[in-house]
């Protein structure tokens, strides 16, 4: 058992649910309301230092009695320790949870994927849109257990909706271009861009 669990219990008390070992990894259940505080504590406490959010995903089990679980895989790069944090949600109830994007920027697209596939709403997410399915997708959340394998619409309707989509709407030019991000790039990359690929000075300045 990962010693972080005992430290969590000592700090947060009842907000920490059961904990178990699975295949060498420690899983700890956290109350939904305390999630953001627990995560911030895990990241910022020097003895914990879980500075890397490996993955955010969700699981809905075929057993309808079991809750939907949100899974956060954490890793401490310095301590070489792993911890899996889970939050349980009622699949037929409110699927809202605090976003961890303020703590790890990398959670942005991971949470968008959980939203796209499971319909989990992340409160405080800067840009909560679908990421795999197109944004006008109207059939629901594909990885939910009540979602039929072939979708809800007929094939003809699916083809019609797909063809009606504008392929350029998936990406805006701002998303694809690095022009806006130029000021935030590291210095060596800036220098490379400034010199151009062949080492010559481009004349855009």
């Amino acid at each position, binding site marked *: 058992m990962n010693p972080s669990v005992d430290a969590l219990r000592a700090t947060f008390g009842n907000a920490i649910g059961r904990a178990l070992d699975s295949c060498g990894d420690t899983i700890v259940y956290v109350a939904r309301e305390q999630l953001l505080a627990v995560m911030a504590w895990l990241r910022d406490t020097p003895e914990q230092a879980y500075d890397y959010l490996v993955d955010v995903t969700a699981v809905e089990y075929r057993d309808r009695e079991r809750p939907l679980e949100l899974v956060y895989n954490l890793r401490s790069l310095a301590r070489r320790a792993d911890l899996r944090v889970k939050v349980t949600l009622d699949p037929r109830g409110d699927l809202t949870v605090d976003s961890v994007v303020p703590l790890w920027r990398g959670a942005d697209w991971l949470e968008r994927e959980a939203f796209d596939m499971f319909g989990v709403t992340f409160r405080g997410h800067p840009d909560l849109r679908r990421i795999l*399915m*197109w944004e006008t997708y109207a*059939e629901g959340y*594909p990885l939910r257990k009540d*979602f*039929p*394998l*072939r*979708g*809800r619409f*007929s*094939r*003809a*309707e*699916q*083809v*019609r*909706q*797909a*063809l*009606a*989509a*504008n*392929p350029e709407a*998936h990406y805006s030019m701002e998303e694809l271009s690095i022009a806006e991000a130029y000021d935030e790039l590291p210095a060596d990359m800036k220098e490379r861009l400034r010199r151009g690929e062949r080492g010559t000075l481009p004349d855009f300045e």
Partner: protein
Amino acid sequence: MKRVIETKEVAGQSPNYLLAKFQDLIDWAVNSSRANSLWPMPFGTACCAIEFMATAASRYDFARFGMERQAYSPRQADVLICAGRLPFKLAPVIRRIYDQMTQPKWVISMGACASTGGIFDNYAMVQGIDTIVPVDVYVPGCPPRPEGLLYGVLLLHKKIKGESLFDGVPRREEQPLDERGLRLPPDQIDEISEPFGNSVHQFRST
């Protein structure tokens, strides 16, 4: 020219005999030129694209069949080779690429997924790209070996050499059926993409 030829009586032949011969000659020249210098537009989305690359590389080398230059711009391509599964998100993309290709143009559907949806009978996958663009040659296989794709290319050569500039058949229905953008009637799309295999036991709940 047609009138000139028709007024001439050739001994023992129909007045259209020379005209037909002339048309055959033109068809032969045009079709041979087209068939033997097809420029492929690769649209590789999955493992079929790996076999496509093997077909293009030196061991199988479809340059031997006139596909020397791969066109990465649809405006300079003759044949669209869809290699791999096509999700619904890519459907408008391949439709636009097909629309941007200049006439005459042909389509090869490479592999089981592009032709029928294959094992991906699910919510995200187009069940056969013939619901999106017209297809000339279907190459079966999962994925097809390079020999299979080359055989498909040769079949396409055969088909092109059988076409005629003079039979009055439009080269390709270019416009979608209606304002909804469909190429086929909805019931036909449902029919050709109906479930098969294991998936007949799974139903769409509404």
